[in-house]
Structure formats: C-alpha cells, structure tokens
C-alpha cells in the first residue's frame, strides 16, 4: 500500500479518538450508510472526526486495504476498527456501542 496514505490513516486514527471514514461530511453525507453512522454519533453527542474519502481516491482505496474491509463507512474508536454501518447499527441498538464508548473513556450523552 502507498506509504503516504498509510501514514495519513495512522495519523488520523491516532489523533482522533473517534474517527469516521465516510463518503461526504457529517453535515453533508453522500451515502445512506455514511449518514447512518454519522447520525448515531450525533445522537449520542460524540465528538468525532469525519474524513471524506470522496476527496481523495487513494485514501478511499487505502482505507479498505488498511482494515481489510471492502466498504465505507468505517468507524474507529481509539485506534480500534469497530466495523461498517451494519455492525455499528447493531451495536448502537443493543447498547454495545455505548458500552464500548464508556470502556474507552469517550464522552457521550446517555439517552
């Protein structure tokens, strides 16, 4: 994999506790799955960084290689890859996502 992209990904994941690689931005998602995770994080009032892969084709391919995961969005919490929208949605509905945020000492609003 392109080393520059690999380092860029590592930096983003290292510097942002909650990092969402997505299509579009949290305010203007370009894909329903990206919007879904972004909205869950907003509902939980989690402070996260959305990274728009549509702005960088190398990043779009690079993130898939990085996690060995073929789709976007991809959510990372404190460096750990949590999954795509299906997994995150299941975790959100079961309360596992909230548990994970607590375990990793990330602030969120309990509903």
């Amino acid at each position, binding site marked *: 994999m392109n080393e520059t992209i690999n380092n860029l990904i590592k930096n983003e994941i290292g510097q942002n506790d909650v990092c969402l690689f997505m299509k579009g931005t949290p305010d203007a998602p370009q894909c329903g799955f990206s919007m879904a995770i972004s909205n869950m994080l907003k509902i939980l009032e989690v402070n996260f960084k959305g990274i728009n892969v549509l702005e960088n084709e190398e990043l779009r391919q690079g993130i*898939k290689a990085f996690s060995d*995961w*073929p789709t976007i969005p991809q959510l990372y919490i404190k460096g750990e*890859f949590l*999954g795509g*929208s299906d*997994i995150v949605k*299941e975790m959100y509905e079961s309360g596992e996502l909230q548990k994970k945020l607590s375990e990793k000492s990330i602030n969120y609003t309990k509903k």
Partner: protein
Amino acid sequence: MAMDLIEIESLVKKAIPDAVIDIQDLAGDGNHYSATIISSLFKGKSKIEQHKIVYNALKGKMGNELHALAIKTKEKD
C-alpha cells in the same frame, strides 16, 4: 453495474454451505440489497470476522459491482 439476487445467493451458498439466506432487493433496482445470513460457521467469531466471511464469499464484488448490501449475520444453534 448491478448484480442479481440469485447470483448473490449462490456465491454465499458456495462459500457457506449451511447458510440460511434471506435477501431482499430494497429498491427494486438490483443495486440495494439487504441480506440476513444464518450459519454455524459464525459461531464464536466477532461480528467483523462474520461479515468478512460474507465479503470473502462475494469474491471482491462488494464495494464494486455490488454497491449497497446491508448484512446481518446470525449464529446457527
């Protein structure tokens, strides 16, 4: 490029022979699917590993020909 339902089902079946599969074409456009897959192969595996088994079954089509496939995996008892 779209993929039809039968093709998705047969790819999954080939890789996960005991799979019970329920696929729905959400928009009727051959491009947005939702699949529930139940298999004993998922036992003891994390959700990420379970979904990777399904992605591997689809042989690289996920994210390419197949744009939108929501996946739900369940362990068979």
